[in-house]
């Protein structure tokens, strides 16, 4: 369950993550002004039930329909649909574990991220919300639909490559080549 501290949304106060590498990296990048840096980057923190840090941000209309956006690989809180598309939408984004200011998960799973989304929404007092997952974020959005469907207004999976084990679409090396390597090669500029 979310802590009282996180529920109060005192998030802009500087609070170092538990992870040592995050602390070191943040200190290097932020220099002596972590407070200002985090304000500029829309950083807010949330302590997950297991003590890990989840950095998140908010865009759009604070009174609008809440939607959690899960960006593709690499997915951080800074990537979000254009502002012109956010009329009437309160968009919440976050750094998936291991990205940005979120602590890495020692055993990352789709449902683990879904649990983090649910805990974050609860801490913000949001009872029903939509989830929009794009590309590499779509499997996490679908996992939210499996984990807590009663809390969701809907799930959008955009640019979604389905689970090949269940769909039986790819096998062996073909699966690795098409899903992992190609994806990262594309992001790296076609090396």
């Amino acid at each position, binding site marked *: 369950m979310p802590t009282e501290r996180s529920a109060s949304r005192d998030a802009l106060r500087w609070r170092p993550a538990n992870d040592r590498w995050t602390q070191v990296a943040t200190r290097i990048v932020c220099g002596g002004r972590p407070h200002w840096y985090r304000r500029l980057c829309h950083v807010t923190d949330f302590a997950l039930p297991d003590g890990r840090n989840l950095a998140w941000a908010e865009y759009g209309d604070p009174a609008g329909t809440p939607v959690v956006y899960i960006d593709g690989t690499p997915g951080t809180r800074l990537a979000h649909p254009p502002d012109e598309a956010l009329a009437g939408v309160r968009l919440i984004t976050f750094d998936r574990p291991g990205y940005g200011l979120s602590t890495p998960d020692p055993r990352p799973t789709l449902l683990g991220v879904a649990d983090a989304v649910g805990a974050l929404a609860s801490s913000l007092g949001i009872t029903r919300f939509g989830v929009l997952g794009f590309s590499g974020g779509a499997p996490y959005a679908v996992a939210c639909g499996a984990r807590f469907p009663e809390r969701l207004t*809907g799930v959008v999976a955009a640019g979604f490559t389905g689970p090949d084990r269940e769909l039986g679409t790819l096998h062996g090396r073909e699966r690795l080549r*098409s899903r992992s390597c190609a994806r990262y090669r594309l992001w790296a500029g076609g090396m």
Partner: protein
Amino acid sequence: MTRAATAYTAGSLDHHRQLLAEGKDPWMRANEQSIVESSRNGPAGLIGDWLATDIHRAGFRLRDVRCRVLVWAGRSDPGRAVPDAPLVATRIPGAEVRIAEDAAHTPSPAHWREMLAWLSP
């Protein structure tokens, strides 16, 4: 980055493609910042994504998804999004498929608006 963007946007609306080429697409700009930010922990996030989506068992089946689902894909997506969309929809009860003829992998602002509107109750 430019080559990646080109591959992912082939077939997009001319207007959108021009915005991308000029570096004026707000989604792509935010995405560039996001890529830089993502490396703060080194490759931890990429490895986490890879383990979660490709290596570890999902822990659920598509039929377990019991809410409204919209599976969106751009017709010119170079990946498996278009052929997978109907397969996914047959396994998720009540899923809806939308294939945008004027898009590739990356949605245009109009497509984002359409998807976010679909999520509003």
